[in-house]
């Protein structure tokens, strides 16, 4: 038998890999239309918390955006079903944690609607002060962070200084800088401390020059304009369709403000204007926020000018915790105190919804009660969640570097969005 010699090629591992890579390159490189998926967040400085955006990119241009929320979910709605109405107040601090006072007020108003109570005039005026201070503080941060996102760091530092002053006021009023827990169903924990009104006035006098300064730094700034104008446009119809609320809605030109259209807390008695935008882009939303701060200053001045006297809590002796002095000395009040503290405020059965104009938009509480001290179901309509839902519509078509300005202009807060 003759011997046949054949030659086999047996490449080693490295050579094999090189061959594979070569063939890969031949098939994949330079394919037009190849998309890349980019994860932005959940811990990205421009996503203001823990928002994750799954972006599909064609080069620098975003073709699809998928907001992924829920990283901060704490089950607040379920927690509410397991505690008294008053015990839930500290949890409302942690919804929109940039304006805890406004959340406290909104929650208290929703519960009072269920109870059929109305706080006296002075209590309402105090609540307006709380809401407007919270609005200024939230917008100060909103504008400052927005500017920082598009590259203007200075503004952030100036606005943050003012926010610290608001925190000092909160501390004087409630005993805590951040987690205010100021309201209770049927009133407030305490009346305004001595000198509070003059302290607020002093603060407002210092605030106005800072708003002007921010205005000077940003409004006519060509770079800021270039980075925000005609970006992230929400048209009037879109804004309504997607249920956007707050400054984002007004930036799109819809003059809807619950303080005007559905006045609560005597807002109809104060003279203020609603700023609306024309284009609905990031720049308009910024302008609306700036103007809203000025309007809040106006409201605050009016409230303090005609601050009524009298009681701050509802006079329903059966539904509220009795006065502490009486609890300490009198048997009847002590028994009553124990009943209220252990069983909660006895709410009538029924369903209510109350929406308040919070800095971020309409914060609504829907309460379903079956009677007794604990809600059967408590639903929170959080404005940030609904404002964010439009991202998937809004972002595609933009450059990746525009995403921070779009996010910054929407001014959301994840604590409330994920609740």
């Amino acid at each position, binding site marked *: 038998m003759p011997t046949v010699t054949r030659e086999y090629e047996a490449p080693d591992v490295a050579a094999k890999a090189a061959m594979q890579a070569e063939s890969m390159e031949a098939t994949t490189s330079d394919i037009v239309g190849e998309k890349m998926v980019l994860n932005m967040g959940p811990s990205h400085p421009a996503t203001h918390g823990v928002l994750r955006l799954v972006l599909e990119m064609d080069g620098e241009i975003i073709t699809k955006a998928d907001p992924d929320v829920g990283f901060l979910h704490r089950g607040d709605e379920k927690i509410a079903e397991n505690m008294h109405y008053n015990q839930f107040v500290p949890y409302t601090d942690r919804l929109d944690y940039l304006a805890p006072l406004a959340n406290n007020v909104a929650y208290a108003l929703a519960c009072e609607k269920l109870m059929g109570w109305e706080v006296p005039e002075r209590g309402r005026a105090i609540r307006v002060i709380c809401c407007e201070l919270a609005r200024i503080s939230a917008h100060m941060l909103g504008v400052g962070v927005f500017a920082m996102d598009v590259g203007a760091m200075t503004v952030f530092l100036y606005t943050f200084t003012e926010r610290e002053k608001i925190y000092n006021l909160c501390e004087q009023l409630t005993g805590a800088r951040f*987690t205010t827990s100021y309201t209770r169903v049927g009133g407030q924990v305490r009346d305004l401390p001595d000198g509070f009104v003059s302290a607020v006035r002093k603060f407002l006098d210092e605030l106005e020059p800072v708003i002007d300064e921010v205005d000077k730094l940003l409004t*006519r700034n060509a770079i800021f304009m270039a980075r925000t104008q005609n970006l992230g446009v929400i048209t009037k119809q879109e804004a309504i369709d997607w249920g956007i609320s707050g400054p984002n809605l007004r930036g799109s030109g819809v003059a809807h403000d619950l303080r005007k259209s559905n006045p609560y807390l005597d807002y109809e008695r104060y003279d203020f204007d609603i700023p609306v935008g024309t284009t609905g882009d990031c720049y308009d939303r910024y302008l609306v926020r700036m103007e809203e701060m000025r309007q809040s200053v106006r409201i605050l001045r009016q409230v303090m000018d005609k601050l009524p006297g009298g009681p701050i809590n509802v006079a329903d002796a059966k539904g509220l915790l009795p006065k502490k002095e009486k609890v300490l000395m009198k048997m009847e009040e002590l028994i009553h105190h124990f009943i209220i503290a252990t069983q909660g405020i006895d709410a009538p059965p029924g369903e209510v919804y109350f929406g308040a104009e919070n800095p971020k938009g309409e914060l609504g509480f829907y309460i379903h009660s079956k009677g007794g001290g604990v809600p059967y179901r408590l639903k929170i309509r959080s404005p940030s969640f609904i404002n964010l839902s439009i991202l998937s519509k809004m972002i595609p078509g933009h450059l990746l570097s525009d995403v921070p300005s779009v996010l910054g202009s929407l001014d959301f807060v994840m604590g409330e969005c994920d609740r």
Partner: protein
Amino acid sequence: MAIITVQRPKLAWHEKAFISTLFKGLKITLSHALRTFLQIAGKKPKVTMEYPEQKWDDQLPDYYRGAPALVTDEHERERCVSCQLCEFICPPKAITITPGEIPSDDPWAKVEKRPKEFEIDMIRCIYCGMCEEVCPEQAIFLRKDYAITGLSRKEMVHDKKRLYEIGGQRVGLVNKWNELK
């Protein structure tokens, strides 16, 4: 209903070319820099503080909500009668109380009960102040301590001894057990 439409400015050529904007921005920045120098020189109140060398403590209101603690009265009596109302109301369930009897030979035997164990888990506590609000004996107070730290989870659970240490004695409260009963 007054609606104002926000005005979108039209930039002049010198603003577009950053000429006037540059000077405007520099003016603001310099004014702030000057202010900072004045602050350092002590001519103006400072914005920041050098914590922990400087503290804000003297500005805190009396009702500041820091760490909750138990207090004793003028006669060193534990004010708490372990009614457990605070344990019940505490939203994050940070308080655990084991009630105990006061022995009949104790001078305060008429009070009948006091806590055998009283623990507040400072990792759970959210400083809401509800315990102070519901206490019918003025026994628990939120103090001005805000820097509560510990090296372990166990250290962060304040037991009865520690709570009385932080709380100390508080005079001038209503002493119903002295006169009335």
